[in-house]
């Protein structure tokens, strides 16, 4: 018997697809079936799944940005997984000189973080328009 690869039926489900399936259940079945606080929380839960979905897609770019920042502004023995914390603490101790380069890093980072958590936040549209040119030059 020969195997027709074109006719393969896909049987795996990716994590992103699982999230989509649960989101669909929450929006189409759970929210209409619930009332009051539970209905409100079901809507929130569906939005939370969107955050997870976007974080899976965007996190590698965020890590790349933080790695580059660590090499510029942190001691060489810093742990890559703690870049944000180490930079925050260096700022608290006034160990980082604030210049255009550093501000550009914060802006680029924040555009990614808000793309994960709330891409439709109105200020983000302004920030994207205002910072896009500067970030592309970077």
């Amino acid at each position, binding site marked *: 018997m020969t195997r027709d690869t074109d006719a393969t039926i896909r049987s795996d489900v990716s994590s992103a697809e699982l999230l989509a399936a649960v989101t669909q259940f929450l929006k189409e079945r759970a929210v209409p079936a619930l009332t009051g606080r539970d209905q409100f929380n079901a809507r929130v839960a569906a939005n939370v799944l969107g955050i997870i979905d976007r974080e899976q897609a965007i996190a590698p770019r965020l890590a790349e940005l933080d790695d580059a920042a660590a090499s510029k502004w942190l001691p060489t023995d810093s742990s890559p997984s703690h870049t944000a914390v180490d930079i925050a603490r260096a700022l608290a101790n006034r160990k980082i000189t604030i210049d255009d380069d550093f501000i550009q890093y914060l802006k680029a980072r*924040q555009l990614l973080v808000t793309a994960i*958590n709330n891409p439709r936040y109105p200020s983000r549209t*302004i920030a994207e328009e205002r910072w896009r040119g500067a970030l592309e030059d970077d």
Partner: protein
Amino acid sequence: MSPEELKALLDSALPDHLRGTISGDHVSQLTRLSGGANNETWQLQWGDTPLILRRRPFSSNAVAELEGNILGLSLVDEAAVIRLASSTDVPVPKVHAVFDSTHPVGEAFLMGFIPGESIPQRWLVDEAFSGARHHLAYQCGEALARIHTIDCTQLPKTIGPTSLDRRFEAAQQRLHAFGDISPVMQFGLNWLIDHAPSDAPGVLLHGDFRTGNLLIDQQGLAGVLDWELTHQGPAEEDLGYLCTHVWRFGQLDKPVGGFGHYSDLIAGYESIAGWTPQLSAIRYWEIFAALSWGLVCQTMGALWHRGQGDVERAAVARRRSEAELDILLLIEEWDA
């Protein structure tokens, strides 16, 4: 606590408080209103009279354990401030009953129901409120000026005077306590410290005077709600708080709460207070308000980790990133 349990407790407790004031002998139509990550808000009927119950579903001690509690006053103190505010022309509900945390009902207070629209997504855009919106920034300026006239010596002892330096220290302690997870929050705090105005005499601030805490009718401002973040500080802080991005509900071209303009807010304030707040000071406090909102989001996350709160509270923790974005935008505008 289930609605049935709460109704039974209120049926037992309220006659002593409402006798001779509001006719009725039991609670009906008890409904939890949505929203509110700290306190529950319930609507109910006592006889034919609609009332509102604010209730804290967890003990105040759990909140106080967090360094630099920014979730606000106890509901007992909040009720005391609302009673003080009712002595001015600021529209506030009448407080009918107060319960401390030892009462079976839990920490709570019962107040009158003010008719009006409380959902900003409706009154900010609905044509029926266009006239109300037109006057609202001026009215908010007037209301804030009146709140700022309240005699601070009459306040509960928990609402004492504080300095800006002490508030910076508290913010720094919270950032440390929450694990220093945000470079932008720290950058924002550093900037605020470096650009701090000199300490001015403190007045009583509402502390949470924003679009989502206003009740609007056809004439404009019908009620000022949610006094749990009341504290003492410079007058411009309340004005800047109302104008910060996160409370404009997407109407970024209308800096006063998404409905008005700075000039009207300042004119309304001046008409009552007799002095003119400076725009630069208001804008400084917008940045402070963005940082404060970020800290509230972090506090929500911390409380959720302690088992206090539901999925909404966990989700609010992620809204810190909105505050961070606004901090960067607002500082950029200031420097420009």
